[in-house]
């Protein structure tokens, strides 16, 4: 094999790699922040690292600022234009389930490789909108029972670490980049954040 052939083969190999094959964006485990002596600062550092997930397009697209979801890594408007409806699962006549089944579905062609799906596919409630918020604002929102679905911090910890729809962010289907790290490490960061007092960065900082 000459050099040109080798180069061509490499190009083919890389071109055939889907986004799902790409190396995962790293997410540092809680141990990475052991050197931060101040407890509140360490707590905030855990959340800031976890926010790499919360602020990722796989999460933001269904935590929109309006009652319509967005799509893609650039958060463009969902095509077709759909509405959250009264229960955040679309309208009765055009529910999310018209297109989003119980699992990711391969498509029959085109540039969209798969249609995402999950048993509980739905939009986040309006009180849990994240798009446009800073990490500090999301932190405060997640702690606020009036905006977090009346959950305790223990329930938040369990939800983020174990919920199947949250877990979809790391298994988003062909053609879609997953959220950073793993749900396990994400859960460890949230658990460490809660254990150290669930501190948030001051919104003014």
């Amino acid at each position, binding site marked *: 094999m000459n050099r040109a052939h080798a180069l061509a083969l490499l190009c083919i190999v890389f071109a055939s790699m889907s986004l799902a094959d790409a190396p995962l964006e790293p997410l540092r485990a809680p141990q990475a922040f052991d050197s931060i002596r101040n407890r509140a600062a360490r707590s905030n550092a855990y959340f800031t690292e976890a926010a790499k997930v919360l602020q990722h397009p796989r999460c933001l697209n269904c935590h929109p600022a309006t009652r319509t979801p967005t799509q893609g890594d650039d958060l463009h408007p969902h095509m077709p*234009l759909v509405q959250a409806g009264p229960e955040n699962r679309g309208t009765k006549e055009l529910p999310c*389930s*018209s297109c989003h*089944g119980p699992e990711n579905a391969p498509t029959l062609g085109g540039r969209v490789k798969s249609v995402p799906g999950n048993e509980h596919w739905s939009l986040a409630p309006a009180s849990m909108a994240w798009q446009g918020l800073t990490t500090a604002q999301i932190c405060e929102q997640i702690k606020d029972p009036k905006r977090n679905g009346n959950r305790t911090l223990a329930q938040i910890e369990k939800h983020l670490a174990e919920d199947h729809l949250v877990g979809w962010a790391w298994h988003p289907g062909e053609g879609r980049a997953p959220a950073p790290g793993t749900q396990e490490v994400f859960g460890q960061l949230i658990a460490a954040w809660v254990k150290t007092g669930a501190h948030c960065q001051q919104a003014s900082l």
Partner: protein
Amino acid sequence: MSQQLSINGVTHTVDVDEDTPLLWVLRDVVGLTGTKFGCGIALCGACTVHIDGVPRRACITSVKSLGNASIRTIEALETTPVGRSLQKAWLDLEVVQCGYCQSGQLMSAAALLAGNAAPSDADIDTVMSGNVCRCGTYGRIRAAIKQAANEIQHTTPEGAQ
């Protein structure tokens, strides 16, 4: 994999791979070609069918996900008052231009009227936004849905069922 599917009230036994899209089963196995292939990525709505009464894109629905669900296609539209009223309105207003998308449009319209007997323009736009028409018949589609809704309300005591 052999599987039984309830399509338009008739049980069909089909022998296909479990990940076969319902669209191919309808068109190539059962022979119901009224449901169309459009984009293949659940964006255009041409392949819309009803699964247990809910509109669903057949191109990305695998047969393994169907279980004992009741599937209804455009071929069964005329079996309901809503469907018949929609067909009449479509013809009265000459909605169709090329017609390729219209079976999907009608199935979405039927789902709309089944859940909302008197939809506003905004209601229609919200639901029908999931169906694309390259001929641009949207205005006539909206008018036909309103005509059908009006007819159902005045001629069908049980309403949009």
